[in-house]
């Protein structure tokens, strides 16, 4: 079983990021690391390939500045090769262009039995790329996968919903987006880190993939304004007089959750 994982490389959340005032976008010009929300996809892919008893995990990424540090982390975890689409003209791409680029990267690898993406990135939170990719690739797509099993030619997915889970069966090949916490991502070993150095990463431009890189000018989507989130209101503090449970019941009743 061959799996392709979309991995986004993002500025390290540990060091405070900065917005570009002209675009309201996060500056992504420095060193980038593997988005934690994609490390779950990488781990799931490795586990699925392991359970299938053969095959390999490849990764694809789009980064404007040729940065590969985040991809190396995924390769150190056990992915065998990667495609990096790096093209200055792609800076400022909207979600649809990103989806076209990543779908093109999937095709350069000759497709796969399964494509995995995170439900949304930790630095952008658009949350639309996986479904757009599925549409472009003509693949069935299952979102918010919480647990995934392969059974014969079909995928069995528990899908997180607001109320609980949907049990979904889907034919392969397919594209799924996985939620954070689905699996425990492994720590890369020293051996893995050393091996990752020499794993092949194919670098492509937008033109190589036949995608017109429209950049800032052609983006169909713009961030109009960025505002500070409202500070949370202080909660109500109730002294326990022995009857406080009534207040809790009342409160929950008011919320219509009981």
């Amino acid at each position, binding site marked *: 079983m061959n799996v392709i994982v979309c991995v986004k490389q993002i500025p390290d959340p540990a060091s405070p990021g900065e917005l570009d005032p002209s675009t309201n976008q996060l500056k992504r010009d420095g060193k980038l690391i593997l988005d934690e929300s994609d490390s779950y996809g990488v781990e799931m892919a490795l586990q699925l390939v392991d359970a299938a008893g053969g095959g390999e995990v490849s990764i694809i990424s789009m980064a404007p500045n040729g940065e590969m540090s985040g991809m190396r982390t995924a390769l150190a975890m056990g992915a065998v090769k990667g495609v990096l689409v790096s093209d200055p003209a792609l800076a400022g791409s909207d979600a649809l262009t990103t989806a076209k680029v990543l779908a093109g990267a999937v095709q350069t690898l000759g497709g796969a039995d399964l494509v995995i993406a995170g439900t949304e990135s930790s630095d952008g939170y658009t949350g639309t790329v996986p479904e757009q990719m599925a549409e472009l690739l003509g693949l069935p797509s299952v979102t918010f996968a919480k647990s995934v099993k392969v059974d014969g030619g079909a995928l069995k997915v528990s899908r997180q919903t607001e109320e609980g889970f949907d049990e979904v069966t889907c034919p392969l090949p397919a594209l799924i987006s996985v939620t954070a916490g689905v699996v425990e991502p492994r720590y*890369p070993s*020293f051996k893995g*880190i*050393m091996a990752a150095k020499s794993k092949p990463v194919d670098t492509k431009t937008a033109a190589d993939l036949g995608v017109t890189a429209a950049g800032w000018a052609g983006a169909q989507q713009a961030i109009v304004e960025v505002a500070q989130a409202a500070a949370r209101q202080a909660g109500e503090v109730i002294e326990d007089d022995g009857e406080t449970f009534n207040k809790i019941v009342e409160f929950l009743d008011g919320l219509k959750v009981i």
Partner: protein
Amino acid sequence: MTINYDLPEEHEVFRKVVAEFARAELSPHVADWDERHHFPLEAVAAMADLGLFGLIFPEEWGGGGGDFLSLCLAIEEIGKVDQSVGITLSAGVGLGANPIYRFGTRAQQERWLPDLVSGAALGAFGLTEPGAGSDAGSSTTRAEPDGEDWVLNGAKAFITNSGTAITSIVTVTARTDAGISNFVIPAGTPGMIIEPAYRKLGWHASDTHGVILDDCRVPGDHLLGEPGKGFHNFLSILDDGRIAISALALGCARACLEMSLEYAQQRETFGKPIGSHQAIAFALADLAVAVENSANLTYKAAWLKDQGRDIGQAAAMAKLYTTEAAVTATRVATQIFGGAGFIEDSPVARFYRDAKILEIGEGTSEIQRMVISRGLGL
């Protein structure tokens, strides 16, 4: 070619992985382990999963094929979170697996190495005796040949990792007619008595016992290395171990610097953060210099080892300087924390108790000064 002080990029990546591992998997538990004097098999298993026990050994034995520098970075980062867990790793690799790897026959390696390398088992090394520590050459434990076997009698003191549930072997030095030799004693061998754990000032989550050898019989093939070469061999094991202890001390000093710096920026007295009082600022400046020096000495010693060069002097200098810097760092950090530093809720108090042994184990500071002064021709 110019001098280059940058560590290789892969090593920096690996350091971050271990740091994240220590933060996520160890730090929530270390205070509890310390308080309960609990030897954390769970921490050993987690470090084993990460491949830390096998880092420096060839892939042939299930190891990571890494260099000594990678081991130092791992010990430093673990030690930055907890010194007990750090010594468990350092001793497991340096005193447990390393002697078998360096001096074992093929058959001995096949028998004992895989489990030590994977971290499924821990090994210990018993050199110190109640009557012989710094002057290890005066040890009195004896091994007598008896038919095909050896029979050992004597006592070892303060042996790290000797009594854990997964201890597989204790390697001991003993006198024979050919001179001091090393013997591997599998755990559970009749006549090897592991005494109850010591009550220690620090390293509460590390395993330390006295070991009695009372007519303890092992087969002839448990002799490790050439007979009579035992003294020479363990000195060389100790040289490697000193660099590892230096890395452990570096982790301690770095933890103290980081904790103190953060505290000095938050804690206010007389209307400003204590870090704005010059006495505290200068103490932190001195600490930063000590950490920088410690790192340079430690990494250079590891580099010399990785180059296959002579490490005796460099290892002694790194161990001497860094362990003394670590003890000073814990004293300074505790002072900067004030009363809070004396209370066990703060990790500073734990580091304060844990640091002192660094100046004693694997050769005291005095012994390092002896080694260094001899190197000067004195």
